[in-house]
């Protein structure tokens, strides 16, 4: 499909037609902040386009905060296990920024690895992602450090790029192309000058973000960064940066790539439900073992674990970073612990290690 143009005032009708047969989920704002949800009213008043990324990430579309796994009946007699499959209406998610697009791909990578997680697959397969790339950065954005592509967000089916009075609309996958057919009536022809305007806007954004302290496209650079996280000589750094950490876990809960979960049973009488719910490596009881041993008894070790996961452990396991530079952990930390400070420090330590 050729790139097309959508006048900005036609965005809502376009989205409604695009989402025919699907639940339309967009960035919305309410008293609690910005997040993804259904539009509460027909006029679309709460649709939010003036934030770069929402306070709550779209992670819940594929990995909700809690979900039942199976039911247990007739406990004590002859227990029956009834798996509970997620009941998912087909959905269309609009307004997903490149950082969050990559995050959804990373989530899929993790959930499909080894034994595929059916709860995640059922949800993901039911969805279509319409990305909205960024032409402006917020002060806490650092996606360019992580090499997140702005021109073709990963895992998205359709891409909208905001230009002056219109959106450039591009199909990125076959499914996206098919879905666009339902809303084609709103679209006009785009030409080269629009494509150039897109490139120019994205270049300007890249230039506006602070320069990356390391090269995310260079494998060797990634590995040397990964190697400086755990060694003993960095312990004083971790202790200092995490001194203020109160272990609240907001960094992990807001993070679009964090996936840790706990599994609990809860029931009454002869009937129980096993469910999973988000957990956080920042909580004291997260790693505490039944023996009483805690592999990460100090808060700084837990912070190191979180940041290490994003910059080091995932590089070892999947060959890539799992931080997407969305900045939510930075914005939401009550005591302003800033992962960018850690990244800068580690990048310096890594380059020093390379040139002794």
């Amino acid at each position, binding site marked *: 499909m050729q790139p097309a143009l959508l006048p900005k005032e036609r965005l809502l009708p376009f989205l409604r037609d695009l989402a025919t047969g699907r639940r339309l989920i967009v960035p919305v704002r309410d008293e609690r902040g910005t997040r993804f949800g259904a539009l509460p009213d027909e006029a679309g008043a709460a649709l939010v386009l003036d934030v770069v990324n929402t306070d709550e990430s779209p992670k819940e579309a594929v990995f909700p905060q809690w979900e039942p796994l199976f039911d247990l009946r007739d406990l004590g007699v002859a227990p029956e296990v009834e798996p509970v499959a997620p009941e*998912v209406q087909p959905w269309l998610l609009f307004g997903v920024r490149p950082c969050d697009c990559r995050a959804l791909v990373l989530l899929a990578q993790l959930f499909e690895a080894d034994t595929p997680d059916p709860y995640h697959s059922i949800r993901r397969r039911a969805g279509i992602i319409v990305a909205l790339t960024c032409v402006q950065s917020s002060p806490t954005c650092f996606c360019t450090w992580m090499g997140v592509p702005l021109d073709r967000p990963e895992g998205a089916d359709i891409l909208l790029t905001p230009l002056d009075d219109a959106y450039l609309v591009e199909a990125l996958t076959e499914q996206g192309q098919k879905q666009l057919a339902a809303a084609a009536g709103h679209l006009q022809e785009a030409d080269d000058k629009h494509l150039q305007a897109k490139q120019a806007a994205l270049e300007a954004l890249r230039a506006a973000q602070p320069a990356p302290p390391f090269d995310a496209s260079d494998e060797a650079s990634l590995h040397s960064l990964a190697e400086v996280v755990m060694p003993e000589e960095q312990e004083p750094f971790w202790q200092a940066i995490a001194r203020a950490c109160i272990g609240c876990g907001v960094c992990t809960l807001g993070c679009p790539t964090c996936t840790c979960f706990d599994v609990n049973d809860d029931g009454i009488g002869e009937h129980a439900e096993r469910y999973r719910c988000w957990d956080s490596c920042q909580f004291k009881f997260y790693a505490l073992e039944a023996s009483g041993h805690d592999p990460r008894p100090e808060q700084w070790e837990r912070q190191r674990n979180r940041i290490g996961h994003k910059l080091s452990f995932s590089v070892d396991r999947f060959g890539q970073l799992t931080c997407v530079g969305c900045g939510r952990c930075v914005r939401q930390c009550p005591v302003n612990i800033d992962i960018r400070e850690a990244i800068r420090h580690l990048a310096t330590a890594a380059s020093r290690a390379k040139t002794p």
Partner: protein
Amino acid sequence: MTKTTTSATQTATTPWEPKIVGILCYWCTYAGADLAGSSRLKQAPNVRVVRVPCSGRIDPLFVLRAFARGADAVLVSGCHPGDCHYSKGNYYCRRRLSVFKRLLEFIGIPKERFRVHWISAAEGQQFAQVVNTMTEEVRRLGPFRWQEAAGAAAQQGIAGR
């Protein structure tokens, strides 16, 4: 066999009856309830009794958990001030639950759904009266369902819950 519901719930096949959890102190109200029973007083069967040694033992969490697990109302009852088997347990209870009751009213839970009484071991009649009155009041109010209180807001989320 795979079930496709989003959570495990009980389906009501019988008409709704108020479910009232009664947290009663052993030495006074529980004995009073027992007296009501052995006197064959006519009482609504809607109160599920939880026995505690003293009303001072009552943690507001008991009440909240009852509401979390499907209670339509909670009744707390203990010894009259001055008659506590442990001397002062009910004084602490009185302070704590006064503030707690106001808090529940502040957040909008109708006051008929949480009642605190003093009923002694000899007051079987009063116990039966309270049970019957409270059951009727709660029947009039209807079932207490958290999700319905929020109304349409429940369906707005990204996960559709």
